[in-house]
């Protein structure tokens, strides 16, 4: 590649190609913590946790809510296979807020019949959505 300051970024979902272009840096949340990837990274595959996806282009920054999937990082390209990913304008804020409250309530109740892992996942998703909107 002529320009070493950027890499090719593909974000693919089952229904569409979500994003395709040159980026200088990308940040997202993984099971091992948040990471920021610059060009020339060693080959790595990571599993995604719900969080904000930040794409730094040459002179613009784009945010999206990324919920599930995994990413394959190569020195000159990154492919994110996302099960669910949304641009801010696709998010319904009210719904996200109510989902957040619901998940919080469930976690506080601590009744034995709730699925903690599921409630936590819902909480993380709702939080990612709301953060992206702000």
């Amino acid at each position, binding site marked *: 590649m002529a320009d070493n300051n950027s890499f090719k970024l593909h974000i693919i979902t089952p229904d569409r190609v979500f994003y395709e272009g040159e980026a200088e840096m990308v940040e997202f949340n993984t*099971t091992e913590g948040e990471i920021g990837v610059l060009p020339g990274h060693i080959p*790595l595959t990571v599993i995604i946790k719900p969080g904000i996806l930040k794409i730094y282009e040459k002179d613009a920054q784009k945010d999206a809510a990324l919920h599930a999937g995994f990413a394959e990082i190569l020195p000159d390209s990154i492919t994110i296979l996302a099960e669910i990913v949304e641009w801010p304008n696709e998010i319904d804020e009210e719904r996200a807020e109510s989902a957040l409250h619901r998940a919080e309530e469930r976690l506080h109740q601590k009744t034995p019949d709730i699925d903690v892992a599921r409630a936590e996942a819902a909480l993380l998703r709702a939080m990612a959505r709301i953060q992206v909107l702000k």
Partner: protein
Amino acid sequence: MASMRDIKRRKSSIQGTQQITKAMKLVSTVKLQRARANAERSKTYFDCMYQTVSSILSRVGHIEHKYLIPGKAAKKAVIVITSNRGLAGGYNSNVVKLITRNEELSREDLLIYAIGNKGKDILQRNGYEIKEELPEVIEEPSYADAMLLAQRLLDSFAKEEIGEIYLAYTSFKNTVSHEPRLIRLLPVECDADMQAADAQNAMMNFEPEDIEALDMIIPKYITSLIYGAMMEAVASENGARMQAMDNATSNAEEMISDLSLKYNRARQGSITQELTEIIAGAEALG
């Protein structure tokens, strides 16, 4: 020889049928185009998924991972993807034949997860055990549906209710060629392709470690296989129906031209007969 009126009635009834088949052909052509575009879009995702899974599996080699060895249970789950509507030639029965004609899959051991009514009906008649019916899923396949189904299957697999998972569907090659296919989802198969992928991906690292990554990626892989299969099945269904209706239309065409010939012959025959009678009558008078 049939009377003129009979032939005429028959002909107009066939013409009516022809109009219906023609309309159905046009409808499925339009649907096919849309389904095909969808199938192609999901293919990108699936191809990347396949590559990643291949590279992981080629790296970890033959380990004792729960998703790589058959479960202890004798039952085998088969997801059967067919359509809800008929008039699609051999589309549905070809998928069902994959199961009924397969020697390795005995009827007693199978649990059928039927997506689409037609396949369910035929298998039920043949005495197979239907575990789940999901007729509405095939109308508009969504990734969420595939995810829920995969989740339920993996749960049963974890509880040792089922030992293997298969998927029967019709793969879409192009508009005129679709092939019924039976693939094994679990345990995941390591085939020759996967060994080939080894060389180029040997440098890949994983976070978390390989085994944990497998735990998380394989459910996604299975979901994407199911989703991809549903997309292809919808495209194949419409392709099959388009072909079947095209054949029906041209058959009707043939019958109509045959009947037109017979009708004209009968008409000519009756004119000749009338003339003979008139002439005979005139001669008798003279």
